[in-house]
């Protein structure tokens, strides 16, 4: 009897502890965060850590590697192909992002006006974003083909050139070609996001500026641009990050050729790690991208810091 009573008391105690735990804000809060943390660890932290570790080893496919410190990075620093890929990546990112921003902003401003068939035009603008990347890359591959290129064909028929353009055979032609493909693919994202930003600007601000005597250009300079700047910062950060880490377009169109002149760090990393089997070296190349990405994020972080006019409340 006594034993049974004791165990019953213990049960009451245990259940009350359990109940109390769930009544505690901190415990309950932690429980709610568990799924999110699990996902972050499994899909973000673990691969990143593994990448770091692999970059410090000489792992090859099929064999466990050993820790070799920074030797991968030392050998990469003497590797001219690696440095070429760094140059290519920066060129690709800067050129494509600048043009994407210009065209995107132009399209957004255009779509913000009253246009005939506005919703249809908007849908068309989104099209490049909807098509799977590899599919559009294959299309570009054909457009740039040395024998079947439609661009060359049209230009020859128009009598503007006499020989087919070697889009992907010449290093600089190839670089500009893949930049153009990336721009085509990236413009919708910039345009639609900036359009969303434009639509948050109250029309009465333009009316007020109109009455204040602003010309179209002055309205753009003094109202649109400052009001849009926070969104521009976000969009361009995303755009730069996505362009810098681009892989699919390059790999499908040129595979890094000719003579590595379009190899980006991402494609070089894949080639060395998977195709070449040197997982350690490939990981090291990937890791070398991190400083650039962190720099871009920091830049946007400070750029994104809300300016004084956006902060609420009193001083």
């Amino acid at each position, binding site marked *: 009897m006594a034993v049974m009573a004791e165990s019953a008391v213990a049960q009451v105690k245990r259940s009350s502890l359990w109940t109390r735990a769930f009544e505690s804000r901190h415990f309950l809060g932690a429980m709610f965060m568990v799924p999110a943390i699990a996902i972050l660890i499994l899909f973000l932290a673990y691969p990143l850590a593994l990448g770091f570790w692999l970059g410090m080893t000489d792992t090859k496919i099929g064999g466990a590697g050993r820790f070799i410190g920074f030797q991968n990075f030392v050998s990469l620093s003497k590797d001219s192909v690696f440095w070429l890929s760094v140059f290519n990546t920066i060129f690709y990112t800067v050129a494509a992002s600048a043009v994407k921003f210009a065209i995107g902003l132009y399209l957004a401003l255009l779509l913000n006006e009253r246009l005939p068939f506005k919703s249809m035009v908007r849908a068309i603008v989104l099209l490049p974003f909807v098509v799977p990347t590899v599919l559009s890359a294959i299309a570009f591959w054909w457009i740039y083909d040395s024998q079947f290129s439609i661009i060359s064909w049209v230009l020859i028929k128009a009598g503007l050139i006499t020989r087919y353009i070697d889009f992907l055979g010449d290093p600089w032609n190839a670089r500009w070609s893949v930049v153009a493909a990336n721009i085509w693919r990236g413009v919708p994202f910039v345009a639609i996001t900036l359009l969303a930003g434009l639509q948050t600007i109250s029309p009465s601000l333009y*009316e*007020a*500026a*109109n*009455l204040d*005597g602003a010309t179209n250009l002055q309205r753009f300079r003094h109202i649109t641009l400052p009001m849009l700047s926070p969104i521009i910062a976000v969009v361009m950060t995303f755009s730069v990050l996505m362009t810098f880490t681009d892989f699919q377009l390059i790999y499908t169109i040129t595979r890094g050729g000719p003579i590595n002149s379009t190899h980006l760090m991402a494609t070089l990393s894949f080639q060395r790690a998977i195709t070449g089997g040197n997982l350690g070296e490939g990981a090291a190349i990937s890791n070398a991208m991190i400083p650039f990405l962190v720099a871009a994020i920091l830049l946007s972080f400070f750029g994104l810091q809300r300016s*004084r*006019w*956006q*902060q609420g409340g009193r001083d």
Partner: protein
Amino acid sequence: MSSVQIRDVRKSFGNFEVLHGVSIPIEDGQFVVLVGPSGCGKSTLLRMLAGLENITSGTISIGDRVVNNVQPKERDIAMVFQNYALYPHMTVGENMGFSMKLRGESTEEINKRVKRAAEILALSPLLERYPRQLSGGQRQRVAMGRAIVRDPQVFLFDEPLSNLDAKLRVAMRTEIKELHQRLKTTTVYVTHDQIEAMTMADKIVVMHDGIVEQMGTPLELYDKPENQFVAGFIGSPSMNFLKGHVRVNGVATFEGPNGVKLPLRNAPAASDGRPVVYGVRPEHFTIADDGADAEIVVVEPTGSETQVFAKLGGEQVVAVFRERHQFNPGDKIKLKPDPSVVHLFDEATGKRV
């Protein structure tokens, strides 16, 4: 400063006409209030005056110049928007000086004018703040400051007080009126609040469904409403209306619903049996032994006066008394309208008889 002439102005959106030929003369220095229920076209008319909407037909002139095809910025007008439309990324000072900056005036001149306007509106300590750091009333004043700095021919106000709380609204009302008395700039002010219209205007224009119902001074509209709409719109609580007939048996009386008899000062011509609407303002009821029987439904004391809702001939009416009667719901009272201020309207057309 300038006069403004609105002549037979119409506005259509597609096939839908919202203004059906509106003519309003506005004298130099006048404070004109356009008032009406929402959807009556008053804001559209103001925006046409500002140049933000096209004029379908008719003319609008500012001073001697027809401005139908003149760009907003060349009309020399300043507008205060309902949501103030302050530039959020500019300080109060920059907001106020923006129009001058666009015109390429010297920084010195801009600062001088901004400083003067800020002094008028007591904004001097706030010039470095951003709009987000201001209260509603302060933003409202900045919007007015932006208008003052320009020293325009005409001020336009588009429901400027509707975003403020009740107390602030009363204060700003006085402030705007005071400002007008000081600057004497021609002002066109749009509101749906008849109290704002009554308290501020030199001239009220009552609009309804795209036409002007009546124009006049506030007291003209209150004393002699030309039709039932204006009678019901001006005054608070609004006028009571009772449907019935005129009876002439030696003295003219009004026979209302369920045989209620109410006094008339004199009978309109050819009137025995004429169907009319009898209008009496709540403040024109008195308690008198020869009044009509009524039963109290609700009593609402406000301190300075008491509003009494009562059934008169089966219809609910409201009466306002400044004396403190001891009323309770269910009490029988005798209500008598003052026949000298009773209004009669034609039942079919709503026009004043």
